[in-house]
C-alpha cells in the first residue's frame, strides 16, 4: 500500500477526533451525572426513564392525597371520639336519674348539663376541617345541623384518588354520623333533658336505650373511619415502597456509574496521550530530516 503524506495527517486527525468525541461524551456523563444525555443515546432506556418519571409523579400525588385524606379522617375520628364522650356522660346522667330518687334541684342541674351536652354535640356536628364542614356531605359550605337539629347537608361522599384505580371517601355524612333509629343524638338528649325536668322516668329509661344505640352507631362510624385510616396507612406504605422502587429503577436506567465513567475517562486520557506522542513522532519524521 502506498501511503501519502495526507494519509498520515488524516489518520492522526481522525483518531484524535474520535478520541476527543468519546472523551466529551463521558465528560458530559460526569457533569450531568446521567448516562442518557439525550433520547438517541438509548431510546428504550429513555422511554423507560420517562415512564418511571410519570409513575413517580403519579405516586407522589397519590401520597399527598393519602396524607390529605388521613388528616381529614383522623380529624373526623377525634370529633367522633368526643361525641362518644358526650353521649357516655349523658348515659351516666340518665342512669343516675332513672331510679327517680333525685331531688328537683339535682335534676335541674343535670338537665342543664344535658342541655350543655346537646350544644356541644351540635357544635361537634358542625366541625370544620379548614373551611369545610366535615359532616355536611357535599354541602361543605353549610352547617350540617341547624339549631332545630335539622340536617342541612346531603349524603354525598367526597372521594379521593389514592391509587390508579382506588378511591376512598374522606367524609362521613352527618345523617349517618349523628342519627340513629331516625333520631338525631341532639333530639335524644333534648328529650332526656325535658324528661329530667318533668321527672318522666319512662322517657329517661327509654333514652338510655336510645343513647346506647347512639353509642353503638358512633362505634360503627369510628370503626369505619378506623378501617379507612388503616387502608390509608397500608396504602401509604405501599406507595412509599413503589416510590422507592421507581426511584431505584429510574436511577439505574438514567444515572451514570460515576466510578465507571471516571475509569473510562482515565483510560481515554492515556490513549489520547499515547496517540499524541506517536502522532508527533509520525508527523515530524520525514525523509527530509535526513537529507
Amino acid at each position, binding site marked *: *500500500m*502506498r*501511503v*501519502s*503524506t*495526507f*494519509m498520515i495527517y*488524516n489518520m492522526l486527525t*481522525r483518531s484524535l477526533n474520535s478520541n476527543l468525541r468519546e472523551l466529551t461524551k463521558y465528560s458530559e456523563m460526569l457533569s*450531568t451525572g*446521567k448516562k*442518557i*444525555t*439525550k*433520547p*438517541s*443515546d438509548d*431510546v*428504550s432506556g*429513555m*422511554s423507560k*426513564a*420517562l*415512564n418511571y*418519571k*410519570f409513575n413517580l*409523579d*403519579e405516586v407522589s*400525588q397519590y401520597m*399527598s*392525597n393519602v396524607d*390529605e*385524606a388521613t388528616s381529614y379522617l383522623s380529624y373526623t375520628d377525634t370529633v367522633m371520639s368526643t361525641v362518644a364522650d358526650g353521649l357516655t356522660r349523658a348515659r351516666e346522667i340518665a342512669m343516675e336519674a332513672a331510679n327517680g330518687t333525685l331531688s328537683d334541684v339535682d335534676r335541674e342541674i343535670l338537665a342543664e348539663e344535658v342541655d350543655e351536652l346537646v350544644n356541644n354535640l351540635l357544635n361537634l356536628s358542625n366541625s370544620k376541617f*379548614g*373551611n*369545610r364542614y366535615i359532616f*355536611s*356531605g*357535599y*354541602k*361543605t*359550605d353549610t352547617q350540617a345541623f341547624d339549631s332545630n337539629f335539622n340536617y342541612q347537608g*346531603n349524603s*354525598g361522599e*367526597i*372521594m*379521593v*384518588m389514592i391509587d*390508579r384505580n382506588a*378511591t376512598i371517601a*374522606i*367524609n362521613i355524612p352527618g345523617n349517618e354520623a349523628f342519627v340513629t333509629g331516625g333520631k338525631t343524638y341532639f333530639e335524644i338528649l333534648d328529650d332526656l333533658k325535658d324528661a329530667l325536668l318533668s321527672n318522666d322516668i319512662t322517657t329517661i329509661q327509654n333514652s338510655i336505650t336510645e343513647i346506647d344505640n347512639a353509642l353503638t352507631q358512633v362505634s360503627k362510624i369510628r370503626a369505619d373511619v378506623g378501617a379507612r385510616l388503616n387502608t390509608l396507612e397500608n396504602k401509604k406504605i405501599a406507595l412509599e415502597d413503589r416510590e422507592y422502587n421507581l426511584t431505584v429503577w429510574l436511577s439505574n436506567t*438514567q444515572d451514570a456509574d460515576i466510578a465507571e465513567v471516571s475509569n473510562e475517562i482515565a483510560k481515554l486520557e492515556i490513549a489520547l496521550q499515547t496517540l499524541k506522542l506517536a502522532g508527533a513522532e509520525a508527523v515530524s519524521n*520525514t*525523509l*527530509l530530516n535526513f*537529507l
Partner: protein
Amino acid sequence: MSIFGIFDIGRSALYANQLALNVVSNNIANVNTPGYNRQDVVMVSANPVQIRGDFVGRGVGDVDVVRHYDNFIFLQIIGQKHSYGLSDAMYDALSKIEQIFNEAQDLGLANVLSEYFNAWQDVATNPEGEAQRAALLEKAKALLQTAQQMESDIVETLEGVNDEIRDVITNINNLTAQIAEMNEKIVQVEAGLSQEEASYLRDQRDQLLTELGELVDFTWYEDSNGAVTILVAGKSLVNNDKSYNLTTAVDLEGNRHVYYGGDDITDFIKQGKLGGLIAVRSDISDNVLFGLRRMIASLIKETNIIHRGGYGLDGSTNNNFFGDLQIYYRVYSQAGYISSATITDLSSLTLDEYEIRFTSDTDYEVYDLQTGSMVASGTYTPGGNISFDGINVVIDGSPVQGDKFFISPLTGVIEDASVAITDTEKIAAASSLSDLPGDNTNALQLAQLSQQEIDALGSSTYEDYYNGLVSTVGIMSGSAYDSLIYDDNMLNELEMKRQEISGVSLDEEAVNLIMYQRAYEAAAKIIQVADELMETIINL
C-alpha cells in the same frame, strides 16, 4: 555517431530531468490541495541508431506527464457523497429537534403534563379550595406555554431547513455554472491531443463534481470530447458548456419546493444535502409536529367535553376549560373560497386532517388524510354546507375540477391554545348543581383523563403517547447519526483509497527530487565531457 550525438543525448537528459523536477516540485506544492491528483513523468528512450551493426541509444525520447487517477474510486466517492450529504442534513435538523424533546435534561412536556393532571387531583381533593383552583389554572397555562415553546422551536427548525434548501440551490447553480465553464475549457485544451489530458482542469472539475455530489444526487457521463453531462431528477443541469438553473418557491404550507423550468421536481430528489433537507422536513412535520399538535388538540377536546358537563362553584355550567378548538384550512383554488369552517360536534371530532377534492366543477369528495378513506361526497352548491365528522365547511365561489381544500383542526391548535377559564369559581369540579361545593366527581373525572386510553392517540394515554413521541424523535435522530458516522467512515475509506493512488507523499517526492537532481547533474556532466572531447579534437 559523432560527438555531437553525445551533446544531443545530454540535452535530452537535461530536458527530461528538468521537466521531471518541475513535476516533482508541483506535486510538493500541491501536497495539501484538495482533489489534487499526483502527477508523474513517464520517459521513453529515443529510437536508437545502428552503428556498425550495433544499436546505440540517442537519449530520452518522449516525456509524458501522467496523472495518477482511478476513475472507479472517483465514481464511488461521488456516490458516497450523495448519501453523506443526506445523512448530514438529516442529522443536523434532527439533533435540534431532539434537543427540544430532551427529557433526559427535563426539557419537554413530561413534567408540566403530569403536574397538570396532578393539579386536577388537588382540586378533586379540595374542591372548594381557591388555592388549588388557582394552581390548576397556572399548571394548565404552563402546559400550554411549554407546548407553544416546543412548537415554535420545531417550526423554527423547519424554517431553517427551508432557508437551507434555498441556499443549497444557490450553491448547486453556482457549481453547475462552474462545471459548464470547465467543460468548455477542457474541450478546448484537449481538442486534437490524443493522450495528454488537461490534468489541472480535470482535477478542478472533479473537485466541483465532488462538491455537487454532496449537495444533490445526480447521474452523469463524460462524452468523447471530455465534457460531462449532469442530470438531476432526469433534467439536465449541465450540458457541454451550458448550465441550467434550479429555481425554488414556497407553497401555502411554507415549504420550499424545487423547480426545473416549470416542473416541480422536489419529490424526485432523494439524496445529497438537498434530498436530506426535503426528507427531514416531512419527517419532522408528519411525525413530530403532527403528533404534538394532535396530542394537545386531544387534551383540549377531552378536557372541554368533560368540563362543559360540570358545574363551577358559582353554579355556572357548559364552560370550556381551554379555548375552543378551531378549524384551519388552506385553499388550493383560484375562484373557490371557504366562507366558514366550524366544529359542529366536538365529540365526533376525529382530530384527523381532511381534503375536499373537486372531482368535477360540480362534484366534491372529502377524504380523511390519515385513514385515506372518503368520508363524504356530494354535489356542490355555492354557500352550501359540507359536513363530515363533526366539522361543517361552507365553500363559496366557483371552484373547478382539481381544486382542493385542506381542512384541519390541528394546524394552529397549539399556537392558538389558551386557558378559557379566568375566574377560579368557574372551574367545574362538581357534576351536579345541587351538590355544590363539595362535589368533586367532575374534577376526579378530569384527573382520571390521564389514565384514559384516547382513540385519537391510537388508544394510548397522553403520557404513553408523549413517551412514544420522544422515542420517535430519539430513533430518528439516532439512526441519522449512525448513518452519518457510517457515511463519514465510508467516505474516509474511499478518500484513503484515492490517496493511495493519487495522493502526494513527501517522502516519495523527496526521493524523486534527489533522483532527478542527480540525473540532471550527470546530464550536465555529459555536456561537459562532450565539450572536452570536442576541445581535444579541435586542439589536435
